[in-house]
């Protein structure tokens, strides 16, 4: 479950954002649509606790993030939030498998190889686990980053433009997988995008 309350953020005096409140329960999905420059990524980073809001609050799994220390924020993010970025990025020196396991390691969780293999099978890249990530296609890379975001059984999955670099086939496939996987672990799925193709896939929508 994730919700926000009167979030405001400013990069400078001219560049100020105030965001509509959002709310997404467990097992629900939410699409946040907006054109470039509307602060989509800023909102996602606020929700992902990568930025600290000027005012307002974010509630993650029923707990307000106000008054948390930076260490607690990092731990909360690692344990509760899985993030999928617009362009999939990885630690290029590590294999696909190790990149997925990295989210366990960095969140101080036990490394679950079986789960990683299982996710790879479900997401259709089980043959590529020992390859380097740059040997994979964009669609495959995006599926790897989905697997990575699911490794710690997060409460919330945040996706920043997950489909904007993908063709229609891959776009459909990735969004279906995202919905299916987040439903399986009972997480809230929040997708931030300008990709109009996703409009019909989500019942709950917020426009920036």
């Amino acid at each position: 479950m994730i919700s926000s309350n009167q979030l405001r953020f400013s990069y400078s005096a001219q560049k100020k954002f105030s965001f509509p409140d959002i709310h997404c329960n467990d097992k629900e999905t939410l699409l946040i649509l907006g054109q470039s420059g509307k602060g989509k990524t800023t909102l996602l980073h606020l929700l992902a606790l990568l930025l600290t809001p000027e005012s307002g609050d974010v509630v993650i799994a029923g707990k307000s993030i106000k008054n948390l220390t930076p260490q607690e924020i990092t731990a909360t993010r690692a344990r509760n939030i899985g993030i999928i970025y617009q362009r999939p990025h990885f630690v290029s020196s590590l294999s696909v498998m190790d990149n997925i396991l990295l989210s366990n390691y960095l969140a101080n969780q036990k490394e679950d190889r079986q789960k990683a293999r299982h996710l790879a099978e479900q997401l259709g890249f089980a043959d590529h686990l020992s390859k380097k990530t740059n040997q994979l296609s964009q669609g495959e890379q995006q599926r790897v980053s989905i697997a990575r975001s699911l490794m710690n059984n997060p409460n919330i999955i945040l996706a920043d433009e997950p489909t904007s670099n993908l063709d229609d086939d891959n776009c459909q496939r990735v969004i279906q997988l995202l919905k299916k996987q987040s439903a399986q672990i009972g997480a809230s799925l929040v997708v931030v995008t300008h990709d109009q193709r996703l409009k019909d896939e989500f019942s709950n929508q917020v426009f920036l």
Partner: protein
Amino acid sequence: MNLFKISIANLREKKLNSFLSALLLTLGIGMISLLLLLNKQLDEQFKRNLKGIDMVVGAKGSPLQVILSSIYQIDAPTGNIPLAEVNALRKNPFVKTVIPLSMGDNYQGFRILGTTPKYVEHFNAKLAEGHLYNASMEVTIGSKVARDSRLKIGDQFSGSHGLDSEGEKHEDKKYKVVGIFQPSGTVVDQLIITRLSSVWDIHEHSEGAEAPAVAEVEHTDGQVHTDPEPDEEGKDVTSALIQFRNPMGLMTIPRQINDNTSMQAALPSIEINRLFSLLGVGIETLRTLALIIISIAGVSVFISLYNSLKDRKYEMALMLSMGATRTRLFLMLLIEGLSLAVIGFFAGIIASRVGLWVFSKSAEQDFHYSLGKFALLPEEVYLFFGALAIGVVAAALPSLGIYRLNISRTLAEE
């Protein structure tokens, strides 16, 4: 998964950069380590053979040459001195022992040294088999001589004139091996030791003052001498090793000899210090060069990490967003620098041993000295920590940027 594994993966990802950094460290460490090894072993070899010899008397010439030829057997002797003058030194109350030496022949490059039993006593040489030479033309050989020339007890051989193996052979007179010394790590290992009289018997030069290395060969059958400390009128020796009874000898005797006799006195401690200070210039230059190479290695680690960090900024932000603490990532980068330092150190230590082995081979061929001690020196432990320090500093400087990295902006930029 652990930090070490990620660090190594990162190093392997940038193979050439890592290789260059490690190679420079290897070179620097290898050079310093080789210098330490050579310095120590030369020092040991020189000190060990020098022990208990306060003065050497020889023909006038370079005092360093007298020392090198008489104690270390690596240079040509300066000439001959009359045995009578040498023996006159025994009467001096400050003199404890006088060991006359006579040389001029070799067998397969190993010097044949005519001397008194005191010489063997002085170097504390123990017999491995057989017995000490007793009669003229009997020899007892050092362990290295036995090993390399394959001479055994009972074998007979004829020496060659001069100090290298190309000299003319004394075919008509043969030496007989009667004993072999145990290895002692001293100059005795590489010598064929015999009575003074054997050398006279072989040569019997009409004019005694000629340098043995250039004298024409002129054989006449000599008399057989059997007394242990011969005092032959008209006989020459090459030099003599002198031990003083007390330090007072050092004050007066050398000057007396230099002023009043045809001989010259050389003091080993002074000459060897002079030799080392001459060598020292070269060693100092090499050491400076090695330190420069090590510094360049440090700079190379720095640049390579700095560049790779610029490339990997997004990776770092990603790992931070996934729950990594900045300190953890800082450690990861430190491990990269440290791993290079450790690799460079051990490769350097191995390289220095290979270098020493090559050097030792050639030293053995030219001087019969072997420098085959490959154990880790205590100084190399300091060198290890020095290398680690360079790795840490070179890695830490660029890696401090991790504490200033803006996660959100870095992730949003691409």
